[in-house]
């Protein structure tokens, strides 16, 4: 499903990549940018988290159609040199920004990252802007990066609820592999979920290594191959069939098996018996030592 998402999205799509401290979603975001550029589509990037050089670093696709709106150098207007501040994140300003460069093809808007905006603007305002972008015609698709561990679960949930697809990335078991949990909502309301293991190569192309159901099986096979300690020994600890039978028949000395239990409960002939006749001296009552109280 990851390849499908990379190949193309329908109009009015909002894709959110959720990452955390343990694995950064930056590279996957760059893969999406690279895929869009390869399809000769214009891409506008609102850069808050990374600088222009860092974003363009490694992108082999032609960056002619990549327009970077730098909100990295001065997002809050402290140095009065800003190209884009965080408070300009509303539909009017964004439409104005996108209209400055005209394109024959519909634009893909990439936001890196939504977490920066959510720190300074209220979640309802951000959701409203995203919804308006989704419904309006200014952009064809919106791709946003969200650091899920930086916000409350409610905020993350609200923003992802607007999205048509959500990809949650986490580190994988092997070095350069990562796990992506994908949730896709189609226009008719059908929700599909998938989990895939992928790796990103140097040119930001994504290789889907496997789906997780296969990966589980693959992991148990090498484990089973290791489980034969009786091989390669200088002495023989294997059992032949008769030996195995005898071993299983053996009753262990301190195990309380059924036979022992019945033997103890029913005293057999020759075993000791205990005969008891009640003795007056055994009836010692502490509260009535002389046994003469009429209670």
């Amino acid at each position, binding site marked *: 499903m990851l390849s499908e998402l990379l190949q193309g999205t329908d109009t009015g799509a909002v894709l959110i990549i959720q990452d955390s*401290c*343990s*694995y*950064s979603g*930056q*590279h996957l975001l760059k893969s999406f940018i690279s895929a869009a550029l390869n399809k000769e589509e214009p891409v506008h990037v609102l850069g808050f*988290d990374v*600088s222009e*050089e*860092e974003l363009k*670093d*490694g992108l082999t696709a032609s960056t002619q159609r990549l327009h970077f709106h730098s909100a*990295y*150098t*001065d*997002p*809050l207007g*402290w*140095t009065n040199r800003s190209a884009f501040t965080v408070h300009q994140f509303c539909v009017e300003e964004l439409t104005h920004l996108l209209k400055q460069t005209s394109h024959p093809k519909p634009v893909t808007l990439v936001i890196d990252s939504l*977490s920066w905006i959510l*720190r*300074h603007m209220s979640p309802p305002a951000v959701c409203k802007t995203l919804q308006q972008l989704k419904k309006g015609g200014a952009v064809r698709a919106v791709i946003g990066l969200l*650091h899920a*561990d*930086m*916000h*409350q*679960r409610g*905020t*993350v949930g609200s923003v992802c609820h607007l999205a048509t697809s959500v990809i949650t990335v986490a*580190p994988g078991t092997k*070095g*350069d592999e990562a796990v992506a949990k994908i949730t896709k909502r189609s226009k008719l309301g059908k929700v599909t979920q998938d989990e895939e293991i992928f790796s*990103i*190569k*140097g040119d930001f192309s994504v290789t889907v290594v496997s789906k997780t159901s296969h990966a589980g099986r693959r992991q148990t096979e090498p484990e089973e191959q290791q489980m034969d300690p009786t091989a390669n020994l200088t002495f023989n600890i294997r059992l032949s069939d008769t030996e195995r039978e005898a071993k299983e028949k053996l009753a262990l000395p301190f195990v309380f098996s059924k036979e022992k239990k019945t033997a103890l409960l029913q005293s057999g002939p020759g075993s000791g018996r205990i005969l008891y006749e009640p003795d007056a001296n055994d009836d010692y009552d502490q509260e009535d030592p002389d046994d003469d109280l009429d209670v």
Partner: protein
Amino acid sequence: MFTELNSILNATPDSFTQGEFILVSDRQSDASFLIHHFLSFYLRARCKVCFLGLVQSFSHYSAISQRLGVSLTQAREKGQLIFLEGLKESLSILIPQETTTGSQAMDFLRDPTVGLQRLYEFVRSSVSSDGGGEEGVEEWGPPVLLVDDISVLLSLGVSAGAALDFSHYCRATVCSQLQGNIVMLVRCHGEEAEDDGSDEGSEWLLKGLTHQCSLTLHVQGLPTGYCRDIHGQVEVCWRRRRGDGQHTQKKLFQYKVHDKGASFFAPGTSSAVL
């Protein structure tokens, strides 16, 4: 400067990666020995260093740096080191006197809600090269910002969001624009809390800074408890890698702090054990 740490980080005073944001963090431990390492490292690399010493006095760092072979007083006189003594400056703001002229850097103490814009402006003026044509002014290398430590600002009333904005602006100026380096120390107390998005404390600040940085060094005590010969463990994590090698790389080391340095070794290979 600790030679073993240099080989772990693949850096020498003559050649080190520029534009790096190094985050030093600790949890219920003390990672300030790493700050002393980086201070002496960058001074030896002839970089222009701006040090925001918010928790200790200048003489404290000076005494330790002397043991590591670097003289802070000399560096300050030559103009290589710009030291903001947070404790002294805060006194001049809290007890204002007519004769005090100090910089506006610690202005956030008057009103913590204003944010750290003034502190950022102080940093920016310190690291940007001024007066290149003056005679007798030595040419220093790329600028370096050291902050010890940023989590104390949370105790002074500054919000964690403001601290993140400050570190973002510093990164934009020092790392991206001037190709310098930043080293920040963040200290966390208590255990790692899950789903901490609501409480904007030091854990949240640590997460935010981790997203911004390119290299983290996380210092913790040993999970098995106190040991006389091993003082703790350091987890080094390389986050952003340019060019090839997109994946993050993590390495774990154990360390012991001596009188004149610290030694780092792979887990289980302490000299006390082998």
